[in-house]
């Protein structure tokens, strides 16, 4: 098994070593249900699609992704195992990627457990399957970005609570910059180019564009490069902070 696979496996099974995994999945599904049916009004809208679910996914992950990522490096630093991990004969990048993929796969498991929603709308009507697939891809990408941010923050501290809170704030900012309200605020005193740039880096902008069911090249590039950049930043952060 390649080094990243070894790290990935330990990390992924680690989620199930404590009740954390079960709690996480239950909370995720419970909230997903509430958002979709009560707040999103799946039935009232009378349309066989999952928009009412997907529009809340970034807000779900806003709290749940940091809960998954807060442990990744902060725990290694608190225990001191980071000294063993980073002196094993494996590149640091493998450890970073392995841990990230474990957290990501776990969030995808949570997403996969919402598939009954899809089955429900498919049974009730004739939904646009392409749009639903795109919605799931968009959701997976948002969780990837949030976990990337969370991993990087987790590498900077020994304290999981701090890692959680800071990650929530950063993810919130990453979402917020895409909203018209926020953009209008900037529009008042920034040139249009700068406003477009702010909207361009927002997770929300690309999420909504993907969710519409059009998988556009620039959105794919955005998510891929953002995740890559965040993993790179995590790598640097560990190198910089591991002795502190």
């Amino acid at each position, binding site marked *: *098994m390649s*080094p990243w696979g*070894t*790290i990935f496996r*330990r990390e992924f099974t*680690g989620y199930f*070593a*404590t009740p954390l995994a079960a709690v996480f999945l239950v909370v995720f599904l419970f909230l997903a249900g509430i958002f979709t049916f009560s707040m999103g009004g799946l039935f009232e809208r009378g349309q066989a699609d999952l928009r009412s679910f997907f529009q809340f996914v970034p807000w779900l992950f806003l709290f749940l992704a940091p809960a998954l990522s807060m442990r990744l490096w902060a725990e290694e630093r608190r*225990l*001191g*195992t980071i*000294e*063993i991990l*980073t*002196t*094993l*004969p*494996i*590149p640091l990048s493998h450890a970073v990627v392995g841990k990230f993929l474990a957290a990501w796969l776990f969030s995808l498991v949570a997403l996969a457990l919402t598939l009954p929603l899809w089955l429900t709308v498919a049974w009730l009507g004739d939904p646009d399957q392409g749009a639903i697939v795109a919605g799931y891809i968009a959701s997976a990408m948002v969780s990837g970005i949030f976990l990337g941010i969370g991993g990087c923050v987790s590498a900077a501290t020994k304290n999981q609570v701090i890692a959680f809170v800071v990650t929530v704030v950063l993810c919130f900012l990453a979402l917020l910059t895409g909203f018209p309200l926020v953009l209008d605020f900037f529009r008042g005193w920034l040139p249009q180019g700068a406003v477009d740039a702010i909207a361009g880096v927002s997770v929300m902008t690309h999420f909504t564009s993907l969710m519409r069911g059009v998988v556009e090249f620039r959105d794919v590039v955005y998510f891929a490069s953002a995740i890559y950049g965040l993993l790179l930043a995590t790598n640097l952060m560990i190198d910089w902070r*591991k*002795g502190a």
Partner: protein
Amino acid sequence: MGELINARNLVKSFGETQAVRGVSLRVNAGEVVGFLGPNGAGKTTTMRMLTGFLDPTAGDIALNGLLLHEDPIRARQSFGYLPEGAPAYPDMTVREYLTFIARARGIPARRIAERLDAVVARIHLRGVVDQVIDTLSKGFKRRVGIAQAILHDPPILIMDEPTDGLDPNQKHEVRELIRAMGSTKAIVLSTHILEEVEAVCTRAIVIAAGRVVFDGTPADFERKAPDHVTRNRMDYAFRAMTAAASEVPL
């Protein structure tokens, strides 16, 4: 095999403070080097540099003939490391943890069970091998840390306070183990216990305020105490050496 560790002029600064100020260290196979010094003298920092956990501000390190900064992955294969406090993942069983380390070290899958058995027998972990690490006593946790470090039978062992917090029986056991391994490996261990140096080390290095103030055999070490001192000669020698160095203006 010959020279396994060659560290030259290691310097480590944290911001304004210099924790290590030019430490050089050469260790051959068959040597057990006891690393001594007051708290804050730079022992742990030096060991962390030897394992590549911390990058030295200046100086270089060759392990088993490989420069650590040039070929870190291969150089890291040549040592086992027991960090301060013997950290391990508390939610894993001993077997799961050692299997994880073995995989990460690239030990082939078919050999893992065999290596695990050998180490578990040698460190007397058989009774707890399927126990969760969190539930183990301090002595067993320390042994798990040692097991992790020798799993791949490395030519170099670096151990930060391997007997710290152990009871006298456990200390004796760990020392016996180190002595037995010391005939073929290059071992560097840090300790606060001066008798330990006499008991297991072939060489003692004392650092104080980030500098080496003594490098010689335990017998030479003891001779540093004046003749009229008859009891606790090593303590006396240690105090004499480290007090002088600490008075050097920073």
